[in-house]
């Protein structure tokens, strides 16, 4: 009989893994959004296009408070250079690296080295890197950086409980980002008006699909004359698109179930119930019905459910190492403020 044993997982490390994954997922999503905003910005409407980024991240107040003015250059700097902005790429990556540092005992040397080198690259970005064709290359490198991280993690991170918490963080963040992007772009692109406008909007829908890494897959599935509803369906409910909300939620459910089954973590029950409710919310009602009532409110509801899952996970597993915390909101918020 093998004498190897289950070493368990510190509550603090579970939280660290969860958040490291979230921060890195944010970096990739932001890089994708910047990339498509740049590639598909409508001449003459640059500021509108870039302001969409601010709205997706609910950064209106934050942006103005930090003394920026609402133009394309400043918005790029706000997200790519401003380390003082907690929603910027450098700040997210710094937070990811700080978590990686506490998690270093659990991570492979390859993972640690990559995040170290990546963080250094990002911390050295300068205003020139945002000009002309340089920005597209930067976005490429940012995506490459997170994807290299993902690949190294896939190939080297030991798959005990820790890996599940890492995946949970990533999936919750990804689903959240997909709904935010959809919300902002859909509101901006409400299908009305003349045929020419509809054609112009097609370009924007394509941009959304590219940001969601679903452009070509969608083409294969859709009719030639696709509708905005089709795009919404694809981003929210496609069972196979890696960034669709439904796929993320199904995997969240399955990971939580594994934690309960394989590792005996019965405290996962509440989070599982929350995930089931969200899955119901995503597939239970016809899309036309949702669109008629209002997509914005619906997406809000989806986001609230994602927060509830995160809070339930925090309550069940992370709170224990900070026993003074009173409410789930505090438990969920604590990393944000840290």
């Amino acid at each position, binding site marked *: 009989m093998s004498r190897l044993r289950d070493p*368990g997982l*510190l*509550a603090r490390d579970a939280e660290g893994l969860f958040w490291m994954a979230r921060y890195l997922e944010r970096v990739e999503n932001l890089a994708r959004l910047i990339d498509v905003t740049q590639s598909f910005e409508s001449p003459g409407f640059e500021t509108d296009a870039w302001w969409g980024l601010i709205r997706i991240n609910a950064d209106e107040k934050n942006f103005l408070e930090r003394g920026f003015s609402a133009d394309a250059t400043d918005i790029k700097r706000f997200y790519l250079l401003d380390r003082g902005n907690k929603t910027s790429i450098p700040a997210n990556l710094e937070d990811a690296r700080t978590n990686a540092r506490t998690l270093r*005992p659990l991570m492979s040397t390859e993972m640690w080295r990559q995040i170290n080198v990546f963080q250094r690259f990002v911390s050295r970005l300068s205003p020139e890197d945002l000009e002309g064709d340089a920005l597209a290359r930067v976005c490429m490198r940012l995506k490459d950086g997170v994807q290299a991280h993902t690949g190294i993690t896939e190939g080297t991170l030991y798959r005990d409980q820790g890996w599940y918490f890492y995946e949970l963080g990533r999936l919750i963040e990804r689903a959240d980002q997909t709904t935010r992007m959809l919300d902002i772009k859909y509101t901006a692109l409400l299908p009305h008006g003349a045929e020419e406008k509809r054609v112009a909007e097609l370009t924007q829908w394509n941009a959304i699909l590219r940001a969601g890494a679903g452009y070509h897959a969608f083409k294969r599935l859709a009719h030639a004359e696709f509708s905005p509803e089709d795009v919404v369906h694809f981003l929210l409910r496609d069972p196979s698109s890696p960034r669709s909300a439904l796929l993320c939620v199904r995997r969240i459910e399955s990971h939580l179930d594994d934690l309960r089954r394989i590792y005996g*973590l019965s405290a996962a029950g509440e989070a599982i119930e929350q995930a089931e409710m969200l899955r119901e919310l995503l597939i239970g009602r016809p899309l036309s019905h949702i669109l008629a009532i209002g997509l914005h409110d619906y997406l809000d509801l989806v986001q609230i459910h994602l927060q509830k899952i995160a809070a339930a996970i925090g309550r069940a597993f992370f709170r224990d*190492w900070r026993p003074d915390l009173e409410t789930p909101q505090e438990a969920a918020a604590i990393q944000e403020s840290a």
Partner: protein
Amino acid sequence: MNEVFRKLWPEYDPGRYFCELTTSRPDAGPVPQWLAERLDRIGLEALRARASAAETELIDLGVTFTVYSDATAIDRILPFDCIPRVLTASEWDLLERACKQRVAALNAFLGDIYGKGKVVKDGVIPADLVYGNANYRPEMQDFPVPHGTYVHVCGIDIIRDEMGDFRVLEDNARTPSGVSYVIENRHLMLRTFPDMMAGIKLKPVDDYGRRLRAAMAEVAPGGLEDPTVVLLSPGIYNSAYFEHVFLAREMGVPLVVGADLVVENDRVYMRTTAGLKPVHTVYRRLNDDFLDPMVFRSDSILGVPGLIGAWKAGNVAIANAVGTGVADDKAVYAYMPRIIKYYLGEEPLIQNVETHICREPEGLKYTLDNLDKLVTKPVGESGGYGITIGPRASREELDVARASITANPDNWISQPVVGLSVAPTLAEEGIGPRHLDLRPFIITGKESWVLPGGLSRVAMKRGSLIVNSSQGGGSKDTWVLAEAFAKGGAA
């Protein structure tokens, strides 16, 4: 310097100091000459390029310590010198035995002073040096520890004088650091300079983590087949955090911070996703002061309330034990030769740097008669405060020192100025001599084990005797030759 090197490196001049490579040693065999030839073959330019690549590697891997100033945190690496320091088999044999002897005496001393105090009653050491010492912990009195081991991990700073004789400069019996660099430096050498090492049999350094884990299990409360060991770190903002991570990984144990541990009913637990899990040995890298706010500093948020209570109840081992600082203190150091003799009935295998104790009449007289040749140190101070270096002091400075010593002789010791040995080092002028010391690491559970080699710290500035990393010191890979070459062989 021997003939071979005078031909190979005509520019290299260690002066009056012992050189760790070019001074002839009976059992070094062909290794020093091989090294010199290989260095020449690689060439200065390639050497610099590889050394710089090696340092980039250290940065990429985050093998760094953090320096905080104002609001910024800077990750620095410990400068790595790529020319190894070589210890021969017979040198190592002596060092190893001497380190074990020293640790045995330190443990016996601690067991005695926290027990019956015979060493004081027998007049070997003055009572106030022990019981009036700031690092004496009354909490330890009459609580014997498993196997009599207080100093589970010890780092002993050893220098080599002009004659080539080793001398102990300092004992580090609290939470000595630096061992991770010993192992990382070897890995770096193997990756970066395989051609320098080819065919040379060295004692391996990669067994440290396993040995440490085994020792931690040996001192755990009895009756457990597989006790749970944790490494307690102050966290990511501690300058030695990299080492804590390194050791936790090498041991295969969780790295915890104070908030991860909780004491209930005098038992220690860690907080896991599955609830509380018992902990049996805490390898702590936290000073005594911070360990338990209920006993020591009440403002410490790094420690674990109740930890000392759990230890007193016999439910957890703490390594190193609390209160070891009383044994590695400067004043007690002066008494170490007598302490060794008292407990072990042996002469020290490696002597202290000659130390004159001014509280003793002959020591005082010698010190006052030779002030201009000696280094005088107040025993109660640290960080070099109050030190006078005789040969470099002015008339007035010597007078001040004389007055201070005469006023309170108990507070003073004096030592000769030691010319630390040098080793060839990649420097601005090419390969030049730089002063260095050695810190071997000794692990003790039931028995002692010494990691072959140790940390060689080197002063990177020409002529400097200060090897501390905080003052620009670097480190070298330390080779212990596994092969005993016939005495008087080649080179």
